[in-house]
């Protein structure tokens, strides 16, 4: 076995970890760094519960061999709430009852963050397409779509008054 030391910037913090050959980015986040918001679901990139931002783009962290992304920048749900304050997406999920069991929530929010970063005023269809890789078995998706549209509106309103 040839384990490797990997450096990552995770939620703006420099991190270093020892990766077993073929260990995924998800395993590095959860098992090495103790960041357990991203969930281990299907392990094949189909459920989206492990979605994190890798160099600002959403990816299923279970599909990324962590050794191949040495020195990359990663953002997880733990890095979303600045100074303990929930951001607009989190607040909208909370108030709009967009979570039930919560297993998909971390991935849903990271996918939504990526969508809104590039498209502050998405249509409903664009939201549906954006979360098409995130499976939720509780909500029927409607409250989640509504929460993301609500979050977009909240963020636009916050920008107008800022």
């Amino acid at each position, binding site marked *: 076995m040839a384990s490797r030391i990997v450096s990552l910037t995770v939620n703006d913090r420099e991190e270093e970890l020892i990766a077993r050959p073929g260990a995924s980015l998800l395993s590095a986040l959860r098992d090495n760094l103790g960041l357990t918001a991203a969930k281990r679901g299907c*392990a*094949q990139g189909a459920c989206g519960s492990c979605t994190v931002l890798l160099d600002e783009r*959403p990816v*299923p962290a279970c*599909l990324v061999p962590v050794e*191949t992304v040495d020195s990359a920048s990663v953002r997880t749900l733990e890095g979303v709430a600045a100074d303990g304050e929930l951001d607009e997406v989190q607040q909208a999920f909370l108030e709009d009852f967009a979570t039930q069991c919560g297993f998909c929530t971390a991935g849903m929010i990271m*996918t939504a963050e990526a969508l809104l970063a590039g498209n502050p005023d998405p249509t409903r269809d664009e939201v549906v397409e954006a979360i098409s*890789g995130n499976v939720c078995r509780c909500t029927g998706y409607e409250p989640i779509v509504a929460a993301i549209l609500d979050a977009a509106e909240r963020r636009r309103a916050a920008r107008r008054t800022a």
Partner: protein
Amino acid sequence: MLSKVHLPSSAAEAADLLRGGGWLVGGGTVVMPKVNTGAVPVDDLISLRHAGLGGIRIEQDTVRIGAATTLAEVGQHDGLGFLHPAIRSIASPPVRNLATVGGNLLVPQPHGDLAVALLALDARVDVVSADSTRTVSVCDPVHADEVITEVRFALPKGAWRYRKAMRRKHNSASIVTVAAVVGDEVRIALGGVAPRPIRAHAAERILETTPGAVTEAAEAAREGIEPVDDAYASAWYRTRVLPVHVRRALLGTD
């Protein structure tokens, strides 16, 4: 148990490593599920992420796409707008941020819709092994010791058509995929109806002889297909609906 992940800095280095066995990994969307579950013993991984195979170049009407270019990069490139519907029909945005053009050529049907589009574009595929380089077509097999380096094609002359029938609007495999260039030359490629993307040569000949014979061409698209039953559709259903989707694709209607 995985023993090592190699990070070659060139395609030649990757091909050299491949002589000792191992699995090539581009975006990881096909290989990592096997690694994660241990369902298939994988010894060495050879990652193409740092092999210098990314990037899209368009000069005059020739498009060159590095094999490790992601589907998302193709889907965001201004010069390749005609391919954007095909890209958006494949998997989900997070998976498209990882999945590569080269990998899409290798996945078995009913996945690999970009390969269907590239077959309709008559794309050339450059491959290297430790001791040779060659250029193949999209539907030609690539050997286990070869690394795909680049895909090349000319921008379509004539109308571009793309249509994918699936069980839901996003993130589902193909029931039937149709991609076509319709001009003086007609090229129709089909997905979902054989283990690899195939050309509908009989249909092409009919349209080249009689451009208006869309219904006849659509029926002829069944010639040579080898559909299978899977979770998405039965072989019977695929055979039944193929002419419908070929016809709609050719007419550019919904």
